[in-house]
């Protein structure tokens, strides 16, 4: 067998092995509910209905209670949602934290909300076998606490992981 033929054979076997490893990893992610079953190869499509994901934003009062944003004010989410889509398209990775860049864009789009403590709640629907139903379930949340007019600290809480950081406008 010529070296070229041997290379071709080895390459095919290598690609097949990569596929098997990828599928094994895909199964691990699915078992831990870390990704959308319909994505990244979609090997688990048609095992459960598609999740209807959403993001709710509430403000946090000084006493720590959450409440709705002022309904008389119009908010912009275009660049914020675009940033989320760029960083994690379709939120395929359900446990991925929200990037600080997206938060920065959010407050630049909505200067009226600067100084307001907020919580971003990421939720989706999950298929339940007993009872057979689609149930709303929180995937994670991001808590925002302002320290003065130009600094905030954020806390990403997704899938049991906690990640904190600070953003400042100078």
């Amino acid at each position, binding site marked *: 067998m010529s070296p070229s033929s041997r290379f071709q054979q080895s390459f095919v076997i290598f690609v097949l092995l990569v596929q*098997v490893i990828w599928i094994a990893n895909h199964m691990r992610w699915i078992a831990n509910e870390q990704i959308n079953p319909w994505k990244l190869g979609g090997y688990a499509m048609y*095992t459960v209905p598609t999740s209807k994901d959403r993001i709710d934003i509430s403000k946090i009062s000084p006493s720590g209670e959450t409440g709705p944003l002022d309904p008389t004010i119009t908010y912009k989410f275009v660049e914020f949602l675009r940033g989320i889509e760029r960083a994690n398209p379709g939120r395929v990775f359900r446990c991925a934290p929200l990037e600080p860049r997206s938060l920065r864009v959010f407050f630049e789009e909505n200067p009226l909300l600067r100084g307001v403590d907020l919580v971003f709640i990421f939720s989706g629907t999950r298929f339940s076998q007993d009872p*057979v139903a689609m149930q709303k379930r929180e995937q994670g949340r991001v808590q925002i606490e302002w320290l003065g007019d130009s600094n905030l600290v954020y806390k990403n809480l997704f899938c049991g992981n906690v990640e904190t950081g600070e953003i400042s406008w100078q």
Partner: protein
Amino acid sequence: MAQGNLGSYLFSFYLRLTLAIAMLAAFLQKVLAGTYVDGTYIYWLSMQGSPTERLFSFACDLSAGVPCLAHKLISQFILLWQLSVGVLLLLGIRSLIFLTIEIGFLLGAGLFADEMNFQVLIIALLCVVFRVGMPAWLLLICLLLLVIDVFGVGYLFVEMMRYVS
């Protein structure tokens, strides 16, 4: 084996194993989810799915709240079928019966999901896998399936029923 023949053989070998791996992976994912073992997914689709996904709604009393035996058996049959297709592809057995099982699975899944374009692609790949070329009659069927796919089986079925009634 000549260089060209080896390349052709390797390509069909690669496609065959890729399809087999994908089928077996889909089977394992269904077992992992458990929704086919207990029939809950088919039961759910029978209530909430698109018109074609409600294909098996006649088999059970949907108000019961739990999947009946028929939905469990249908789900487990789908599992077994997918496993069989994966194993047959893995073994590379060229037989009319096995090809019928494989293409039957594809068409059944395509009808259920109302998505024929993917099935046509896989049928074409199967022709490469088994190195048989696509006969004219199969090409015509595939083209017909693609035309049906433009509208969707569900839409055509609803329109047909409207016309009949």
